[in-house]
């Protein structure tokens, strides 16, 4: 109960973790996407800049 009563005190500290959570989430999502691409027998989608030759 004390924990809940002081939620305003500690919840603000969690905001410092938010950028980390977002970064890990994006990475995890990308890793999952790559794994699925590999499972389908293809390579992960790699976007190259137009000036760079493929291969």
């Amino acid at each position, binding site marked *: 109960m004390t924990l809940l009563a*002081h939620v305003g*005190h*500690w*919840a*603000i*500290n*969690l*905001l*410092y*973790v*938010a*950028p*980390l959570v*977002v*970064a*890990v989430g994006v*990475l995890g999502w*990308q*890793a999952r996407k790559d794994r699925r691409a590999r499972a389908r027998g293809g390579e992960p989608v*790699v976007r*190259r*800049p137009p000036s760079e030759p493929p291969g």
Partner: protein
Amino acid sequence: MNRRRLLALAFVAVGAVLVSAPATALAHGLVGRQDLPIPKWLFGWAAAVVLVASFVGLAVLWPKPRLERAPERRVAAVPGFLDPLLGSIGLAFFVLVVYAGFAGSQTTTNNLAPTVIFVIFWVAIPIVSLFFGDVFKAINPWRAAARAVAWLAAKVSRGGLPAPMAYPAKLGRWPAAIGILAFAWVELVYSGRGDPSNLAVLALVYMAVQFVGMSLYGIEPWNRYGDAFGVYFGLVARMAPLRWTRTALFARKPLSGLTNIDVVPGTVALVITIIGTTSFDGFSGGPAWSNIAPELTSLFRDLGLGQSTSLELAFTIGLVVVTLIVAGLYRLGVIGMSTIDPQGASTEELSARFAHSLVPIGLAYVVAHYFSLLAYEGQRVAYLISDPLGNGSNVFGTSSATVDYTWVSATAIWYVQVAALVIGHVAGLVLAHERALVSFGDNQVATRSQYWMLVVMIAFTSLGLWLLSAANS
């Protein structure tokens, strides 16, 4: 669930518990009320955005290595007398500090020793080294004393001294890492740290250890790998645009000196120790530790230990745990990198390969956490240099100088802290990107391999800002 995921979950859980501890607030040291336009946590978000933007910028605009193997150019000759002269000055100052510790007032603020050791030596020298190169090597008192002894012995014995043993490769920078941990323990844990005579004894003990190391393995090898402060300041100096030798001064690109560091065992441990112990300094001033410390202390008191010993044990545990958490964060980043690495390098190999990218982060943590100490407590040197023993002398006529706590505001200190953390982490990203380009050849692969390093940098930045905000609240 595999071991890596368990490790990751464990660190996330520990981090969440620490971060969400109730903010009952302990006013930290010298920092007063800050007047900020946005909440502090928003600075953390902004810093993360800067890091991501820097990462993207590096991927797009930095396709080839620019720092690794960058050439340096000779800009000036250094007179031969300068090295022994600066060494003599360093040694004389060391003797003065030790003498003041023993013979002077035992009140911390009235004695030269504590301010010189904890403020000038620990904080100012790394900052000076960042801009001017390895100045400590020139004024290193134990190196100067050893060189003088070696020179004298060579003159007296005529045949010279016996050749030292080869420095053991396995030892690497471990002695330096242990030395820095020991210094941090004295600074943050030891209850007698404010007693100048204790500091004088410890300074002499440290000097004795250096003499043993140098006599066994040679002056230069020991200074390069074993002398904690020589190694630490030397690493920081590698970021400087200047490099000194005994005969010449060279100019180079900032940060480029770090890219040719020889990664021997203990290098990662040394840098992690700097980041971890500084983190504990911030953490121990915050609300989370103020809740944990009394519990731990009473646990040891219940075991029959005295109050002082119990407190020291509790703080020792805190110091070690926080350092291990920082080590774990880096390890997680390296493990993540190894899952993307196309060459399939081991985590140990990757950890060593990217160790140099942690050096600017280590310095950023030191600047962020100790800037206020330097800005305020550093002013004590003005009166202590005239009255080093605190006995009323006035050698240079400055003994009546006082500390001006208004010259820099708490808000300005916060901005310096945030800037130090952001710049340090961006520098870390640059170095890691460079190393990835050299290792993997292709910019695309290099960028992909650095996703996890970006996460590590965001984690260290968020941790640093949270620690500062908690300590300043």
